């Protein structure tokens, strides 16, 4: 995908649809929406050549708020849907948006395999460490002792899911972390992610003001990801495993062949039918 670098014809607001978000006032997802439209405007991507694909969750409602093509699919299945679309229509810019529950709980398997495939998608996960839409249960990224949900009255007791570490182990070629309290940084990361040829994973810390008011403290906890992103996965692994999960920036970027490799057209349907003639 090539971004045209002339004077922007469309402003970020032109990428907003008329649909009013259902989000709670103050929800972190608003900032993600804004950063996405800003990065699309910055890259001058024609709206009709952009497709936003999502699953189910507060975060997954995002595509309807962008004036582009979109698909609000099934809980956890945004990545395969986007994969099918991108294979069928390599000319489109396909972004995938969703939440931590959608992407790391029910959708965990597709996350692994999308990272491996290195298809040219940009995957933005708005991580609020909770299931917002179903009113406040623990997600895979929730701390083990968070006991505010009656479904897990003493906390899950389960180690947190480490998105960046998993993405790296699974083979993702671009990994970054943004924070909805840092809209500029997030816009920059998103533009880089969209430009990256191959699979790019953008982990966004996006607080849920309703079920995780404690996440207000994030603004004091985030910090730049230690040292510049290298392209050495071994070193990246060491750094990611040592990080506290709050490091912002581009964590890892390497250049590898984009999937799928195209094969040449070689035959016709008529020729195929002949195989069966006796």
């Amino acid at each position, binding site marked *: 995908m090539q971004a045209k670098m002339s004077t922007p014809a469309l402003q970020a607001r032109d990428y907003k649809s008329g649909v009013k978000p259902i989000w709670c006032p103050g929800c972190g997802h608003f900032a993600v929406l804004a950063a996405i439209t800003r990065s699309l405007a910055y890259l001058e991507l024609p709206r009709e*050549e952009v497709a936003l694909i999502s699953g189910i969750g507060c975060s997954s409602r995002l595509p309807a708020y962008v004036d582009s093509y979109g698909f609000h*699919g099934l809980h956890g299945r945004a990545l395969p849907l986007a994969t099918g679309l991108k*294979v069928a*229509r390599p000319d489109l810019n396909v972004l995938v948006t969703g939440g931590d529950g959608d992407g790391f709980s029910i959708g965990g398997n597709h996350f692994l395999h999308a990272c491996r495939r290195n298809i040219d998608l940009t995957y933005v996960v708005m991580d609020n460490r909770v299931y917002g839409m179903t009113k406040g249960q623990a997600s895979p990224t929730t701390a083990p002792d968070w006991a505010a949900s009656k479904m897990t009255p003493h906390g899950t007791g389960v180690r947190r899911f480490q998105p960046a570490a998993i993405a790296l182990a699974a083979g993702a070629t671009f990994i970054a972390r943004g924070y909805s309290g840092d809209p500029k940084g997030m816009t920059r990361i998103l533009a880089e992610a969209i430009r990256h040829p191959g699979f790019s994973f953008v982990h966004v810390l996006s607080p849920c003001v309703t079920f995780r008011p404690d996440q207000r403290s994030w603004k004091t906890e985030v910090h730049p990801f230690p040292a510049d992103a290298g392209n050495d996965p071994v070193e990246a692994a060491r750094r990611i495993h040592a990080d506290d999960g709050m490091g912002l920036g581009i964590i890892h970027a390497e250049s590898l062949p984009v999937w*799928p490799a195209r094969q040449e057209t070689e035959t016709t349907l008529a020729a195929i039918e002949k195989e069966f003639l006796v």
Partner: protein
Amino acid sequence: MNLEMPTMETGSISLAITGSGGSGAVTAGLILLEAAAKSGLYGLMMRSAGPQIRGGESLSLLRLAGSPVACMDDHFDLLLGLDWHNAGRFAQEIPLHASSLILSDPAIGAIPDTFTAGGAVVRGLTFKDRAARVDGGRLNMVAVGTAGALCGLPQDMLALAADEILKAKGPGVVEAATACVAQGYALATEHDVPATKPTHSTLARWNISGNEACGLGALRGGVRFVAAYPITPATDILEWLGPRLEQLGGLLVQAEDELASINMVIGASYGGVPALTATSGPGLSLMQEGLGLAVASEIPVVVIDVTRGGPSTGIPTKPEQSDLNVALYGMHGDAPHLVLAPLDVRDCAFTTQWAVRLAEHLQTAAIVLSDQSLGQTRAVTDPAKLPGIPLQRVTEPSPASDYRRYALTADGVSPMTLPGTKGGMYTADGLEHDAFGIPSSLAADHHQQLDKRRRKIEAFDFGSDWAELRGDGKLCLICWGSSSGATFEAGERLLADGIAIRVIALRLLAPLRSDALAQALAGVEKVWVVEQNHSGQLYHYLRSYGVLPEDAHSLAKPGPIPLRPGEIIEAVKHG
């Protein structure tokens, strides 16, 4: 020794070839089938195997005839034993009659009692010895020669077929095989071979399996994207499609699971590329949520379910027609969609192609119910027919400013924009929505969209391909999919017996064409609904629409063995 065999003129010849791992029972069957094809005949070949992945016993079942055949016969005329290790396990699959012929070399061991108990005639032939006369000779190829001669196949056609099937193994193998075939042929001519020769059809014919035919139908229908996860007995479709899709500029993606497959297919189709997946029962179960999304968001998709014995993991290598219920009713909510079933091996191509075209036009999910007995059976058959109507997706290339993706149209089909179309941007959604696609929980929107999704399917004119109708008796057999071959043959035999009979083979199962079916049933007094499952799924489905007469009966027999015409006749006459 007098070898009496039925002839192609009088009907068909059925033969079974059994042997343990490496004995070449399958290769022998493939060569005989291809030789029959080259001789201008028609035929079928099914295979069966033991539980081992490799090296277990295996069985080829063939039926050769001068005109098209769509099922196995009640009995086998000829049983060729290449060896007898574990062959007893196949006893139920190889019914013999008192004049069946068992050919075997006494040197390879005793024939299990279970085969000889019914009085079949046993002939010892020196296959082994003959094979030994050839450098690199193999017993199975000698048996092919003898069986070919008995079936009236010309020796040169057997040689040609052997060459075709074995050429990948190198010229030495082909040469040895040809020599063995000659030995076997000679062995037969030492005995009284029936003089009759098969009637040779000069029409173009195909040698094709049901799974290949499904693949071909998909390509003919325009499918250029497939995402799938391997599963027996559907994998062959995928293995056939994989290289060919690429050659046509499309792609097959091996997905991580069936949840991914169906969603990938939805994504590709949303992008405008006709897309399909193939699976079997367990995979179909996993795809239900995705299918429901396709229905609600009105994205065309096709799923081929090559049914195997159920429930659960069931009997993966054997056929059953027990996925009708899940195909009809497996999605949560009210989700009208299409269900079709090919009536025989050849029809797999037509029905799949039709399904793709219908799904594309009606913007919905179509499930094609093939099964193992169609998919993994190889048929020599006339080429498949093509659907009459050139249906295609109704798109909106230049949307107006108030474009509504889910517009309430008269025929229920809302013209859709494809990504890339300026001004046609919308968000497809599985949430209930208004005409613009915006989520809505208002009763009016829900009812209108529910009505529309039903209307586009119910009101569509499917033409006459919804079923194949034969005869006009007051007694009627209704069947669907793979049970049609045996049912048609039962009908023909009953008719020959002077019983006026009517057969209705349903190809389109949902939406049920109740009016057309009622018309086809006009004057019928008694009905048998024939199918290969345990609970009479079609029978209950038809009753739920009130289309059957009072005197309606279910002839439902589960897998693993496909229905035979004689069983149906038995039920109708005495049931």
